[in-house]
């Protein structure tokens, strides 16, 4: 799995994505703020992800043509024109856009749900509240599934590479 993250910031989300990747996954991040990149790199190193994650310093729009695809997932935390991304996407690959109003720092589902509901209400969409409860149950199921590796259990083993 290859991931491209546009707008890596101080690496908050990069760390979460790196932890979720399969063992052979790699991630390239892009971030224009050099001070943020320094922080992100240090945190990734501390978490042991530096071998699989690299971050490019520079304005994503200006450096996109230097990145070589294809990527299975492109995570957008910053705005870039979509037509610039198409050539970087693997067949069947996906672009994931993070909700601009939700900031993530390893949120629990309860924290995420509370923020999402508050946001939906603020936007005048009260109908979403019960629907978000349903979504949170599915998310809970994903996060607690026995096939998701957790750092405090066993070392990940990928069936594809046995």
């Amino acid at each position: 799995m290859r991931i491209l993250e546009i707008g890596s910031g101080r690496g908050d989300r990069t760390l979460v994505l790196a932890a979720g990747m399969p063992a052979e996954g790699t991630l390239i991040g892009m971030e224009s703020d050099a001070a943020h990149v320094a922080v992100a790199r240090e945190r990734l190193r501390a978490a042991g992800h530096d071998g699989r994650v690299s971050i490019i310093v520079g304005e994503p729009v200006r450096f996109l043509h230097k990145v070589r695809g294809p990527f299975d997932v492109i995570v957008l935390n910053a705005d870039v024109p979509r037509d610039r991304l198409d050539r970087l996407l693997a067949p069947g690959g996906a672009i994931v856009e993070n909700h601009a109003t939700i900031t993530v720092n390893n949120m629990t589902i309860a924290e995420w749900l509370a923020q999402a509901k508050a946001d939906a209400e603020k936007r005048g969409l009260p109908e979403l509240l019960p629907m978000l409860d349903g979504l949170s149950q599915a998310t809970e199921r994903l996060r607690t599934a026995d096939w998701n590796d957790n750092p405090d259990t066993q070392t990940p083993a990928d069936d594809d590479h046995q």
Partner: protein
Amino acid sequence: MTTISEIAASVAAGQITSEKLTEDCLSVIQQRNPKLNAFITVTGDEALEQARQADKEIAAGRRIGPLHGIPLSLKDLIDQKGVRTSAASQVRRDHVATADAVVTRRLREAGAVFVGKTNLHEFAFGTTSEDSGFGAVLNPLDPTRSPGGSSGGSAVAVATGMSLGTVGTDTGGSIRIPAAACGIVGLKPEWGHVSASGVVPLSRQLDHVGPLAASVADAWLLYNAMQPEGGQISDALEPTSLQGLRIGRLSGYFFDRLDEDVEHGVVAAIEKLQQRGASVKAVDVPHAADMAAIYLHLVFGDAAEYHARTLVSRPHDYTTPVRLRLEMARYVLAEDYIRALRGKALIAREVTRALDGVDVLALPALAIPAPPLGAATMPVKGGQDQVRALMLRCTQPFNLSGHPAISIPCGKTRDGLPIGLQLVGHYGRTPALVQAALAAEAAIAS
């Protein structure tokens, strides 16, 4: 239902013209479409012109093949040059396709006549075809019920003779679900084996384009014509011998929550195949119960990305239920999306393992009969479940895994509603799956 395979011989022999076949379809559309709402756009004049042209070519000895002069329809998610592709949404009411989708072009090259664009669940984001910017589609067998979806209009078109075959799309079951609910055949090809270029996406990694037809032979004819020129094989396949066919009957989750009559019909069909010489063993997909959560995060993430701009700029051009589900989809976090991608790979491995040592998997296509319009829940063995979850539970695993899968009719409920048997084949062996389905279809009908 008239099959293409039967009628093609009459067309070849000059006993029936394409113009007559096309007029017949247009006449059914004129009589029944005002009520059933299967078509969003009818291209009658164009179709008759294509038909007369086909008749000239056939009379001059230049018949292309079995689809030459055959009236077909296209789900209104698939581009046909010069015609609107609405995706059943007012968001796209002004969009006119400037070129044919790859599948449209290939069928056109095979000589097909296009009678119109069929109605669907808006942007294919639903399973009942009720939420459409052009009004709900009704089931011709019982107009108080849904025809299934999202390719609901396509299934109705074939079931009623508004067209002799059709092209649909399937992201979580949208070909096989309406095929089962309307008593016809639906083939979801292996992922990537039919081009999705020129087709409005729901989730590119889960979208499949494929045929709905009156018979397995017809579904194969259409599928074969959708292949690139070098990839086409014989227009007619021989059925597999049931003697020695190895069937893996999926157990657990796949038979857990079914309508009683559906269960009875599917079990009886598998027993019939066994009586005719097939061997049956129980197989399973250990993490089947995680599939719905995996699927939801992927389809939500992908749909939210595709619709991000128009959800802000034209929210009121969506139907309310579809708009709200897209709004909810925007809250899926990238980290959970990554988890779901890993789950997708896991399910693909488990389905592949279930196919170890068998030729096909067998299970229901649709856990319930066609649901009443507006129903939120339906009774199944052991309780009352959400309609949406029930409709997807038997089909979505093979969108996650990408294996080829086909739904064929296998009897009716006590209320006279069709039941679908689903067969699933190995990667790279779609013809073998279709050959097994031909044999099963014949055995079930006898």
